């Protein structure tokens, strides 16, 4: 089934089309949500919310205004930015200095060993504001002015938060490499 037929089916509230759309885009949306969320559980919840919005607002989607993927991306990012979760508390950085980027025991046994997974997990450990700025700047290619408008902060604040985000992220990656190779 091509995407146009799937979207048409979704507009008619057809379950099969909705399922096809969900299974086709779930990984993509989930990845975006993971980058913006503090943990995978929040990301999974956000992903469900994003698809709820997609299915309830799909009538508003218009091909003339852009691709469906861009539309879904915009919803996922907007939702991730707007949705402040109870569990999405910023991890106090004081603990980062002591136990920076220590993968929890139950997760360390998981299969996620590749570089991307580690990077995403590192991004998730960033304070919320830093994480949002980093995502918007690096992955959505927004300028600091645009980020400032989106997050209601000054462009200079966006700039400084990006710098701090990168510093912490580099430190987290460094710490992880050190621990992985047993170097102290």
């Amino acid at each position, binding site marked *: 089934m091509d995407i146009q037929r799937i979207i048409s089916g979704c507009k008619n509230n057809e379950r099969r089309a909705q399922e096809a759309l969900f299974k086709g885009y779930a*990984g993509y949306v989930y990845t975006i949500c*993971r980058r913006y969320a503090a943990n995978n559980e929040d990301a999974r919840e956000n992903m469900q919310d994003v698809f709820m919005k997609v299915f309830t607002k799909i009538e508003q989607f218009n091909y003339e205004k852009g691709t469906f993927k861009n539309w879904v991306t915009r919803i996922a990012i907007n939702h991730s930015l707007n949705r*402040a979760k109870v569990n999405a508390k910023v991890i106090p*950085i004081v603990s980062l200095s002591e136990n920076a980027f220590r993968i929890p025991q139950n997760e360390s046994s998981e299969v996620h060993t590749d570089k991307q997974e580690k990077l*995403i997990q590192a991004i998730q450990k960033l304070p919320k504001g830093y994480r949002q700025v980093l995502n918007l700047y*690096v992955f959505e290619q927004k300028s600091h002015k645009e980020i400032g408008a989106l997050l*209601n902060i000054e462009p200079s604040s966006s700039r400084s938060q990006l710098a701090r985000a990168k510093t912490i992220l580099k430190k987290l990656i460094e710490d992880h490499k050190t621990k992985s190779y047993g170097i102290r």
Partner: protein
Amino acid sequence: MALDNFEQELFDDLAGYQSDQDLNLDQEWSDLETKLPKKKDKRRFFFWWWGSSLAAIALLVGLLLNKNDFKSTINEQQVYQTSPEIDNSNILNSINTTEIVSSSESIQVQKNTTTNEIEKDQPQLKNSATSFLTNANIETVEIKNPRTVSAPIIPSDFRVNSQFSKTSKTTVNIFTTNDQKNKNKFIGENSPIISIEKEGVIEDAVLLSNILEDNSTIDTQKEIAINNENVNAIDTLDEKEKIVIEKAEEALEGKLISLAITNNWSLTASGIYGLNKINRTTSLDNQSAVDFISNYEEPTDFAAFDLKLMRTLNKHISIFSGVRWSQHTSLFNLNDVFDVERIDENVLTEEIYYLAGNVEYNYGPAQYNVTVRSKLWQKYQSISIPIGVSVHTSLLKKWSVQNDFAIYISPFQNNVGRKVIKTETDYFVFDNQNYTTKLFFGLGNQLAVNFKLSPKFLLQFNFDTGIDLSSRLNTEQHYQLRFSHIGAGLGGKYVF
């Protein structure tokens, strides 16, 4: 905007990366599917389909019960004893004069005929009665009523639906059969009985108010009219003959007859409880606010109390009005954290711990989290005036079914409760009482099954549906708010 090396490395590593390895897509879809709204038109269809089905079932059950009830009310044990006095009844036959003898124990039958009308065929009358008519222009027959005590004739409150100023009509069945069982079948427990003796022939006239289902044992059936407000006379509709019966009021012994149920006025009080559905739309720019409210506000229940004053037009149709108090309840269930932007107050936004051990505190007008965990009950109350039509089966029987359809005019509202409305950067609490309301209209349908507890009082089981036709809120300032509901209830109907 150029990315530095670190940023570029991040972008290259993650921009095209898709991570769904820890996702169970089937499970995730299953979870999502339960939250997805069902097809709107289907939901509406099912709402009315259920309503119509229940209405049809209730109507069918009512009709069946009605049919059975007729049989069940046959009092096999009831034997009307023929008083010995009946043999001594005296018929006064006075030609060309009208003589009405008022007596507490007598019935006077007056027949007015004209010569031309005598020619007309009267097949439904017994020969003796026909000849009785042919021989007289005006005849007055006085008959002593043998059953004034054991079986009331016509109580003083006896009324039959009237479309004229003083005349109403019903059916008189004249029995001449000696089959007491069949006679009792139609006489019933409370029906008025008229015994007439004419020239040695005894005729029982029973008022059954047009509800006869089997007239195989009836020799003569005449449609008659009840004349005058005191209901102490019966006229035939056929003007060439007139029967006037005066009965003994004191002979009623306080008994009421079932025909009294067809009286003109009744008052119904009932309570209804059920489910409601909110329809909230807007043509304004506040769609996001409406979406937000819709996401968090779930309808819960519906309750109403009705008082209906009903005027019977005829055996099957009545009109009514009255008052309805109703309440649509919903729950604004919020458990969320808002990012709030305050520009007029400084808050601690960050505590930055540098790796060197320095700490930097950032204060300022910026985002911070506000947690709201509330279950806020919303109660939309209104007082409405129904104007409607009721279609019903005969209310004379033990079981009857009625369907009341009405337009509701609702001039009064009281909306109780608060909502937390979130905007892009802030939130605020809104009291429902601050919404400006307006007069709104609605449609309602109530299907009821009545059970006659006594001649004047009926127990009522009802099934109620309704829908708002217009918005309850001022749409120039707010959104359109409309409710629909479905419910069941219990009530009582008193017949005056």
